């Protein structure tokens, strides 16, 4: 029983990472109608940026954290402006291939940095390798930080989308871009902002994940597991992304423990296939129908 609880907790921590990446995917999907296959690589870039800030520039952790998140946010905005905006309105196929290309370039460029790109680094965070003992449970502080940070970030994002002007405008634009545009909402600028926000959230996910795994060029492949998370939660629902991430994380860690070897890696994909057959719109997805 205790063991199961332990596994569930580590699954929740992993699920929070998936959820954060999925959050970015959903933000992008709601604004520009594409699944970004580069999102895991944005997370990787964020982790590398944080690593660079801390080791090369020698910044303390908190400063490096803020600097990385801001820098990645700006990077997201620039990325949207330069490569995404020119092909909006083209078939979805074009956008998806474009993001695959962005992922390739990001991974390739990081690998090309001499002495850094091909190595595996550990991020020197202040809370590294500590554990708390609560009763008989052994809690890994790194995982607890992930869970706490995700909870806080979700609250902040919820407040933003609920109460601020820009958040409400983003919601409006995601529901109907044309109508939002007629109401005087600067939809294009909001698209850029959404990409920036998504990239910033991805950077946070990268910085949270870095102490648990390591920082390396291929860590972005974890983004491919965030896609099932987004689908399970319902693509297009922000709370759904977090819930979906948790579902995927817990299923993955439980199947890693109770099922034979090999099931852990495919569990997220099996879940998403079942979900797509049973309920394609996800847990929180809304049923929309086009009227002809």
């Amino acid at each position, binding site marked *: 029983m205790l063991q199961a609880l332990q596994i569930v907790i580590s699954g929740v921590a992993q699920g929070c990472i998936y959820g954060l990446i999925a959050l970015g995917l959903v933000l992008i999907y709601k604004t520009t109608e594409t699944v970004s296959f580069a999102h895991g690589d944005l997370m990787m870039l964020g982790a590398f940026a944080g690593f660079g800030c801390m080791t090369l520039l020698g910044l303390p952790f908190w400063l490096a954290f803020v600097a990385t998140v801001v820098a990645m946010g700006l990077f997201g905005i620039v990325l949207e402006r330069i490569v995404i905006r020119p092909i909006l309105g083209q078939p979805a196929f074009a956008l998806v291939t474009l993001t695959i290309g962005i992922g390739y370039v990001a991974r390739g460029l990081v690998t*090309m940095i001499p002495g850094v790109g091909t190595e595996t680094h550990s991020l020197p965070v202040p809370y590294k390798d500590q554990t708390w003992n609560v009763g008989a449970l052994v809690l890994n502080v790194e995982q607890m930080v992930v869970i706490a940070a995700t909870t806080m970030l979700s609250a902040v994002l919820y407040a933003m989308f609920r109460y601020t002007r820009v958040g409400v405008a983003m919601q409006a634009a995601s529901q109907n871009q044309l109508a939002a545009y007629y109401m005087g909402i600067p939809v294009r600028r909001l698209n850029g902002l959404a990409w920036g926000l998504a990239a910033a959230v991805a950077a946070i996910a990268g910085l949270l994940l870095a102490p648990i795994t390591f920082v390396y*060029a291929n860590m972005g492949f974890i983004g491919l597991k965030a896609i099932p998370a987004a689908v399970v939660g319902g*693509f297009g629902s922000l709370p759904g992304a977090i819930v979906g991430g948790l579902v995927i994380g817990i299923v993955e860690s439980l199947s890693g423990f109770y099922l034979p070897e090999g099931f852990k890696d495919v569990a997220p994909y099996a879940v998403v296939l079942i979900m797509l057959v049973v309920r394609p719109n996800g847990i929180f997805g809304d049923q929309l129908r086009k009227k002809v």
Partner: protein
Amino acid sequence: MRFLFKTTYLQDIRLARHGGYVFWYGLLVLALLAAPWLCSEYWLAQLTFILIYSVVGLGLMLLSGFTGLFSLGHAAFLGVGAYTEAALVGIGTPFPIAMAAAGLVAAGVGVVVGLPALRVKGIYLAIATLAFGFIVVEIFARWESMTGGNAGRQVMAPKLFGWSADSDASFYFVCLVVTVLATLAILNLLRAPTGRAFVAIRDSEISAQSLGIHLARYKTLSFAISAALAGVGGALYAHKLKFISPDQFDILQSIDLILMIVVGGVGSVHGAFLGAIFLITMPQVIALAKDFLPAAVGQAPGLQGTVYGLVLIGFVLFEPLGIYGRWLKMRTYFQIFPFYRRGMFKRQKSFLKSDRLK
């Protein structure tokens, strides 16, 4: 400039539209037939790979380019074909039968994947095929009695009644025959009602449906044919490499296949071939270019990925019709010289089309 004056419908759907087609494609066939005597062994191997990837590309082109369905797990069909072929040839089946079986098994798997595809659309289909691809690769890795697991498995040379295509040249001819047959089959399919139905589904599902096209049947059919071609391609691939392991059929291979048809030109049969040529020759070009680049760039391990990514981005942004589109533009320029206008191939700008409400 050539004016085609058509008087019958048969003329309109003829494969060779005018004398130029017969001449140039005849020349191409002659050159390909003579290739084993003209090329060095190395380039013959590359040419064989181009033919194999063309077959797979034709399948993916039919699915993505002509039916408008995504597949991010096409390498899995390639793998299913390859392992079926390896198993059947291993027990002494003549290779044409084994190859047909590889195609059929892959088609069967394609139908299974295609069934959920009837419920989901666009992006979701891409995700479903992606998930399917991961699961299949894991099955390849775990089903050790059949596939040899991660250690891989050897593939015997194709045999037929005592004759064995074990030399490079003889296997090249096997690939050539299969490629020509596959191309003719696709071209025929596309001018038949079935192919027209596929294109109609790509352009608008709602209009296609109201014209009486049974969406479910045609989508599944498209999946099946596409998977069958990928399976046949996989069979050839297995023979060519003589050794297969699960990691040859993972997501990166699927992305390579996507790269191939996007660069070649989505929605054109030529595109599959041009894309295959690109995919096979690109690593050689990069290897050649390495000598001229500074060592810090040239020797970096990520160079190939970066170049692939940049090419992909470049084509999506500036040449959505791919290499074939570029060729069309050049040809039109010279055909109607000097009346070519900049806007002739301009993309229609549309508002963001929402998949969510479809």
